[in-house]
């Protein structure tokens, strides 16, 4: 390899695509893990179908995993530099994600008449035009893998499952990376199946050596720039795991037992799956009979003194609406994690969207204010889950944390915090036998009530969905209802006194302010950075606190003549801002394709607005 020409690159996007079950998610993860461990910054984006195993080798069954590695990575990248397509269907459906000039690696053994027909091809896909525009590597992956399997006496089915390792081997060669990390992973993962370890290592090595022998590849080897990151200890983490860990951290910090009542739903299930592993850290996970029981058990747990949470996605949040109103009325701390997906209804279960915002803000009967926050990267799901729990416990309110499928399933480098560096969380516990305790008496600053737990002496009281007066008993008095509605709103509004001000990046005299919220920050940051490098004056502000908004939001928005609110829905945040700041003219840029923003499309839109 020493004679190879190695091209240095700031970043590289690799997309693995194949049939569901071809192991594309695993290949992608192994490549991103190895990259992270060897010093690259990373972001990943799994793009998989809702069907577990759709008909073999059809377009419906194509599963993809995109990895973006490099020096400073904000998103999983627009289009890829290298595309791996394990069959004609994945080639057909993923070529649009490859840059012109990209290297395309296919398993040529699958491009049979039958395979092409299943993918809907009537003519040879490798046209002259295609071969001119891309570098194509027609690797005989299936046959090479089969030969190794035969040599080792492994059955055909097991052998086939290791095809992804061959492709991964090629990628490792092309990115000038060693196989050691992946060897170590295989040894750990299949510790009890040495024959599987041996097979996979052999196939991985074979792919690597195959690439070494290909002339064409030698001019395409890249060395990816090392990340420039703050000092510290790092790990790779997905948004859903980060969310689960943020809740666990908040439980440890607050001293309250963690309870999660949830029902499986894509793409949020992994939050529950992760927490279910951690009974040793005190996590009490309850897989409920439905979404409603998920949140209701959490409300019960909150009444009994736990840091209570429920995790879900759009349709599940709809089912939880009534119970959310109960949590608002009883003023109990509760964290609801909504890993958003394409809607309405069942919609696009495995695709990302930001279209639950309106539901989170308004989806309840009555005047039912609560706190809404949103995470903006896979890694910072940890901090936003922690913050959601802090607000819930310290302000005695339900909090909805919005993440999305892109953040939840995607992964990123995570700088590991020390628990001692995280802020304190002080739950508003009542004092046993306090003669002054009344269920809905509030403190002057936060306007939050106190939390008296069953089991505490001298604080017996009743809560419930019916309107109560501050002292606790039921009341249908008109003035009391008006007062209580005001108080519940005031409590949520006052959360703004305990959160940082909204920040803006870019020139103060910028010609355009880009506004984003939640999971889109990667692409938006990059687009704005690139435009400023190109000499354009574009400022950018990204919201994580959604309700209440940071106190300076109005002042900030009023500074700019042109504002564009970018979100993966039809303008829900833009509408929300307009109702509060009608004096600020805002345009909006929306995408509802179940896909994240691309830097290219954002820049095109911003340039258009600047020229207008």
């Amino acid at each position: 390899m020493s004679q190879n020409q190695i091209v240095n690159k700031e970043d590289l996007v690799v997309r693995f695509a194949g049939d569901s079950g071809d192991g594309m998610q695993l290949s992608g993860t192994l490549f991103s893990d190895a990259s992270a461990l060897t010093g690259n910054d990373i972001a990943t984006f799994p793009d998989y179908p809702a069907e577990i195993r759709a008909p073999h080798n059809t377009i419906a069954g194509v599963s993809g995993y995109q990895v973006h590695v490099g020096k400073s990575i904000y998103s999983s990248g627009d289009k890829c530099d290298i595309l791996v397509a394990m069959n004609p269907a994945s080639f057909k459906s993923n070529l649009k994600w490859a840059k012109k000039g990209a290297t395309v690696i296919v398993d040529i053994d699958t491009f049979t008449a039958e395979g092409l027909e299943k993918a809907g091809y009537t003519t040879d896909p490798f046209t002259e035009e295609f071969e001119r525009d891309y570098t194509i590597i027609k690797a005989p992956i299936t046959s090479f893998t089969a030969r190794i399997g035969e040599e080792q006496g492994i059955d055909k089915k097991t052998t086939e499952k290791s095809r992804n390792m061959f492709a991964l081997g090629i990628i490792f060669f092309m990115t000038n990376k060693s196989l050691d990390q992946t060897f170590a992973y295989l040894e750990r993962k299949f510790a009890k199946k040495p024959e599987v370890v041996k097979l996979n290592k052999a196939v991985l090595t074979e792919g690597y050596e195959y690439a070494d022998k290909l002339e064409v590849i030698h001019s395409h080897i890249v060395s990816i720039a090392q990340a420039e990151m703050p000092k510290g200890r790092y790990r790779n983490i997905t948004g859903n795991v980060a969310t689960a860990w943020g809740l666990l951290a908040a439980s440890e910090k607050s001293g309250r037992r963690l309870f999660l009542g949830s029902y499986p739903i894509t793409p949020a299930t992994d939050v529950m799956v992760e927490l279910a592993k951690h009974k040793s850290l005190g996590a009490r996970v309850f897989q409920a009979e439905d979404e409603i029981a998920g949140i209701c058990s959490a409300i019960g747990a909150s009444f009994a003194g736990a840091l209570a949470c429920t995790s879900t996605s759009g349709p599940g949040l709809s089912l939880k609406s009534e119970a959310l109103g109960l949590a608002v009325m009883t003023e109990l701390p509760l964290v609801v994690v909504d890993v958003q997906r394409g809607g309405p209804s069942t919609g696009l279960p495995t695709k990302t969207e930001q279209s639950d915002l309106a539901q989170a803000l308004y989806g309840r009967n009555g005047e039912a204010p609560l706190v809404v926050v949103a995470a903006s990267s896979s890694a910072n799901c940890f901090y936003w889950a922690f913050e959601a729990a802090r607000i819930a416990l310290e302000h005695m309110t339900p909090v909805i944390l919005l993440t999305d499928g892109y953040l939840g399933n995607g992964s990123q480098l995570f700088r590991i915090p020390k628990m001692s560096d995280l802020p304190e969380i002080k739950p508003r516990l009542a004092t046993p036998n306090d003669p002054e305790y009344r269920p809905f008496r509030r403190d002057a600053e936060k306007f939050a009530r106190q939390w008296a737990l069953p089991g505490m002496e001298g604080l017996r009281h009743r809560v419930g969905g019916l309107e109560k007066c501050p002292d606790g008993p039921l009341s249908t008095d008109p003035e009391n209802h008006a007062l209580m509605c005001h108080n519940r709103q005031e409590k949520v509004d006052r959360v703004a006194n305990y959160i940082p001000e909204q920040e803006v990046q870019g020139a103060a005299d910028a010609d355009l302010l880009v506004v984003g919220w939640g999971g889109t920050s990667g692409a938006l940051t990059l687009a704005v950075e690139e435009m400023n490098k190109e000499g354009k004056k574009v400022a950018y502000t990204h919201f994580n606190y959604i309700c209440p908004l940071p106190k300076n939001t109005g002042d900030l928005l009023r500074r700019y003549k042109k504002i564009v609110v970018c979100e993966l829905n039809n303008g829900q945040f833009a509408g929300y801002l307009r109702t509060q700041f009608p004096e600020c003219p805002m345009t909006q840029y929306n995408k509802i394709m179940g896909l994240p923003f691309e830097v290219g499309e954002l820049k095109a839109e911003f340039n258009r607005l600047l020229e207008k």
Partner: protein
Amino acid sequence: MEKHFVPKTDVEYTKQDFTSDQMVKWCPGCGDHAILAALLNAFPKLHDKKENICMVSGIGCSSRIPYYVDTYGFHSIHGRACAIATGVKLANPALSVWVNMGDGDSMAIGGNHLIHAIRRNQDLNITIFNNEIYGLTKGQYSPTTKFGQVTKTSPYGTIDYPFNPGELVMGAQGTFFARSLDVVPPLTTEVMTRAAEHDGCSVVEVLQNCVIFNDKTHQAITDRAVRDDRTIVLEHGKPMIFGKDKNKGIRFNGRQLEAVVIGENGITIDDILVHHEDTEDCGIHMMLARMGGDLPVALGVIRNVKKESYTQLYEEQMEQQMANGKYRCMDDLLNSGDTWEV
């Protein structure tokens, strides 16, 4: 190992200790008054710490009960009491959790939560106030309304086959089921006490009269003149004898249960079934719970079998993992697996 999670006290409570200062707002003559009294009489017998008792209810007339009991209480939303109570118990197993629901609350809108709480054998004391009608919404048929009954929403008679709560309990693998009548508070107190002593999910059905919207719905069995002949109070280990003159009994005729008169047609006491509430197979309990019509309605504890409760199993797993789990604190978890220094 069976374990009791709710702390006991030596304090000798009285009914008054559990009576709240709130005005009871049920209709005069409503069966709920008697059920409340029975419950208030049951608490002192249990010696559970008063602070550790938690009442959870749904929506409906009966669900107002937490306001009338001086314990911790949660008057929640329609149908969800079992789910909320499950969370209460899981968050703090030291609480004695009581769930009170009506027939509509528990078996229509809340049916799913009820059967799953029973299936898990979650340690809850569930009382179903069964008046066979929606009272608080003023007289619509419920999942237990008698077939053919005319109500506001069934002006031509219902064509809904009613649930028998006992069948639901058995069908969901329930471990405790008892039945009582609002007009017999001592029996209600007794079965509630037995229910609370049961480790696992207990369901007590109380046949209750709605004086306004379904008056006398249970009169055919509760009326003093006929009660002894139309009901049978089952007692563990004793023959199933009933009737004003204690001369009737239940026997199994090879196909089904039947009511017989001892001394007639050669029937002796030896032909009469002996009640075993702890028979694991629920077949006979199901037959007993279904009795009615020509057979007396079964009251008392119909089924009471031992089976590890969800609470028990959950706490065992928690203890096991807390003692032997890989991670002792969050710093352990955060630094686990593949990490590297920059």
